């Protein structure tokens, strides 16, 4: 039996929270008045508390499960960051209070910008974007504005076929035409693939490094040179930055614009889909285009907002970004320092290579070069068994692990990113579960086709959900 919805538990007259409202008549013209009360549930506090507590137990989460989820960096989210980001001095601060009231918050913003700049090798950062895709849009609008300011608007953006879907969607929202760069069999982007596509109408190339196949783009310096020779900007999608902390920096590779996902690399929790944050860093020549306002430090050491930014692209959202997410990332970087960040990437890379090697006889790697923080493994011979890679994903849930990213960036693949925060024992147990699944592919296709079997529900009918739209009570 699935738990009833709160609306189904509603009893007229119940109310968990009341307010000291008086019976004075409300002076409001009828044309502005609500005619019928909003049909919200009428329940007691205990009903609400039990309902959401029971629901929470139906979730996988990093606190309870291992997520080998490629390109998502589901690392452990330290509890201290939850505590410090919710301190009343932050939580009860209004964004329009005068700067003199918010010096602590502004110092945090200013210093986080500086630290991200050091980590990424960029000159200036904005913390306004609320998510990775929001950062991409910010970056593309900066590229657009920069070319306009040079007096030469450009129309095209190059995106590899293996890029995250947000890349082409963001570039298009910024008004660009998308030119797809096909993938090479070795998983790397080669200068001779870029050469025929790049020209004086190319505004930017969007790249992820390591790329979504988990390998480092070895030709990056040559590609950067080619882009800059044509006057195009190089954009770095920071989804996979967790591989590079303390090892190398996008700025040194030649990237002009980067976004980082604080909810991946910098350990802020995913929250079931957000809020995250997608700060954007740029090289000095693009700093005038960053969103407004910008935090600045005054000669006396205090902080203020700079609003007079004539070349700024404008505003990406109201106020100053997802501040409590920024506070978590700030705390994380302060706790780790360079040594800790380097140790994190090192462990993430060792873990991914270990899993890749331990599974290669069952799930061969897409490429046999060493991987960075994630590996892409192939699930071959599925068709013969009447299976899809989705069946494997669902079966992995039964073993108590979140499914890897599947069927992307290539068919029938499993993209596994263990992160640095899992123990060898967890990795070994996962490897053992994957090997069992490999055996089941050969002998128990029915078990896989109908997986999962040990979850709160059986496999959901997604087709029915889309055909018979039921999106609310």
């Amino acid at each position, binding site marked *: 039996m*699935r738990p009833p919805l709160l609306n189904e538990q509603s009893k007229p007259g119940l109310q968990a929270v009341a307010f000291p409202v008086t019976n004075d008549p409300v002076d409001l013209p009828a044309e502005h008045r609500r005619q019928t009360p909003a049909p919200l549930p009428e329940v007691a506090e205990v009903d609400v508390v039990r309902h959401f507590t029971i629901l929470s137990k139906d979730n996988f989460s990093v606190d309870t499960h291992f997520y080998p989820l490629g390109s998502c960096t589901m690392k452990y989210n330290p509890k201290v960051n939850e505590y410090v980001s919710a301190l009343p001095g932050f939580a009860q601060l209004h964004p329009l209070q005068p700067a003199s009231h918010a010096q602590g918050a502004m110092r*945090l913003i200013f210093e986080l910008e500086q630290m991200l700049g050091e980590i990424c090798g960029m000159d200036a950062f904005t913390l306004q974007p*609320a998510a990775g895709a929001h950062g991409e849009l910010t970056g593309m609008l900066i590229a657009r504005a920069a070319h306009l300011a040079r007096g030469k608007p450009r129309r095209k953006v190059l995106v590899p076929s293996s890029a995250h*879907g947000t890349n082409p969607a963001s570039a298009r929202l910024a008004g660009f035409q998308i030119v797809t760069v096909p993938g090479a069999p070795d998983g790397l982007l080669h200068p001779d693939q870029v050469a025929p596509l790049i020209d004086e109408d190319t505004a930017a190339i969007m790249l992820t490094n390591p790329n979504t196949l988990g390998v480092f783009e070895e030709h*990056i310096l040559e590609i950067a040179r080619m882009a800059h020779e044509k006057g195009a900007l190089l954009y770095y999608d920071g989804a996979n930055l967790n591989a590079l902390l303390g090892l190398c920096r996008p700025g040194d590779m030649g990237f002009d614009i980067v976004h980082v996902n604080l909810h991946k690399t910098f350990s802020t929790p995913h929250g079931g*889909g957000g809020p995250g944050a997608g700060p954007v860093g740029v090289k000095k020549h693009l700093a005038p285009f960053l969103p407004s306002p910008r935090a600045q430090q005054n000669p006396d050491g205090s902080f203020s907002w700079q609003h007079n930014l004539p070349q700024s692209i*404008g505003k990406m959202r109201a106020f100053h970004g997802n501040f409590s997410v920024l506070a978590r990332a700030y705390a994380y970087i302060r706790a780790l320092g360079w040594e*800790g960040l380097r140790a994190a990437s090192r462990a993430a890379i060792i873990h991914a290579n270990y899993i890749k090697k331990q599974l290669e006889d069952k799930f061969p790697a897409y490429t046999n070069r060493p991987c960075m923080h994630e590996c892409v493994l192939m699930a071959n011979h599925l068709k013969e068994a009447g299976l899809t890679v989705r069946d494997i994903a669902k079966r992995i849930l039964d073993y108590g692990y979140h499914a890897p990213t599947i069927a992307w960036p290539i068919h029938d693949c499993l993209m596994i990113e263990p992160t640095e925060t899992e123990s060898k024992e967890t990795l070994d147990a996962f490897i053992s579960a994957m090997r069992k699944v490999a055996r089941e592919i050969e002998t128990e296709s029915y078990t896989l086709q109908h997986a999962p079997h040990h979850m709160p529900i059986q496999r959901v009918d997604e087709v029915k959900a889309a055909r018979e739209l039921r999106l609310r009570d």
Partner: protein
Amino acid sequence: MDFVPNSEAEFAAMLQASGVSSFDDLVSCIPAKLKEFRSRLPAPLTEMELVMEMEKLAASNRTSRQVLSFLGAGIYDHFIPPAVDALASRGEFVTAYTPYQAEASQGTLTAIYEYQSYLCAITGMEVSNASLYDGASAVAEAGFLSLQANSNRPRIVHAASLHPEYLATLQTYLAGQKAEFVSAPLKDGVLDLDALAGLVNPRTCALIVQSPNFHGCLEPMAQAADIAHRHGAFFVACVNPISLGLIRPPGEYNADFAVGEGQPLGCPMSFGGPGFGFLTSTKKLVHKISGRIVGQTVDENNQRSFCLTLQAREQHIRREKATSNICSNQALMALRACIHLALLGKRGFQQVAQLNHQRAHAAAAAICGLRGFSLAFKQPFFNEFTIRCPVPSADLLARLEKENLIPGLAVADPNAKSSNLLLVCVTETKTSDDIQRLVKALAAFSTP
């Protein structure tokens, strides 16, 4: 501190098992010159040092508990029942991933479905997505969706009373699109309907109106919606969700989209974020809207289940042809809103809106009793109103800052060089003592 739970011996074992002799072998693909960089970060902190450092930073802010503040203008100081924090801070919600794997995410999915139901209930709209970033970007998304759904209609008309940061965001988002923005003028703080009728035309894809508007006034939404629809344009209503316990909801005046900032529903102010943006629409537009949507379905045992649906609209499937680029949203804040609305329930939701209205009107009446102070506009309002002061509002704010009192936000006066206008917000958290303190402080500026 690096949160890595393995010893060097275990790393050595894993490296050996991977067939390499050292970590450097794994990263030899990175050009050597990229590995030679110099940069500085502060030295790492132990957890105790970190907590002390963060507490010090937090303590150097002056919060709404230390300062008596009547600031609103998009972020509001509302009561948040402790059960919201207790439930929404559960690790099973906080550290869960986006619920793509439905069988491992029924908790999040059920909560989002209930969130969608409650948002439809309060707005009177037919469909809700699972949240967007914030109110400003929700307006921008609605603008973009309107442009896409109405080719050959490049014009977006917005009321001049739209929150300035929302307007700026809309314009920034759409800088690369062929959109033209037209600001509809105001008369006594709200839309001049005669002027508006001349600005909306068959080239218009959307009319965007916020109510309560930036000045606190309630706009003539029904009449504005009629003007938009007469020309086949979408009517986008931007509303304060907490007002809808009392104020006519967008569904009652046939809005096509109702959007806004969800922070008043159980989210702390947190220096402006994260709150969440909400986007609701008519059923007809469901295939055109942006963001994730949860639908009800069944599992193989015919049990009720929930999953993400209509994903063919989204970037991970459609890439550049998606309705939007959005991926992550503000799910955990939408969960807070869901819990908050459930706790308030049908009656609490009405009460909190009434209390806001009562306290704001009590404050406005008392302030207007002071000589030299008056309401800038003779319009109905909810919990915010604009006051004309006898002195420039910036001077007034500067003098009261020393008394730990922020009487409101100094706002520009389009008709004057230095503005005497003050936007005052009074929520349910302001007691009659607080209001008396405000009035007493303002009395010092009263004209003799």
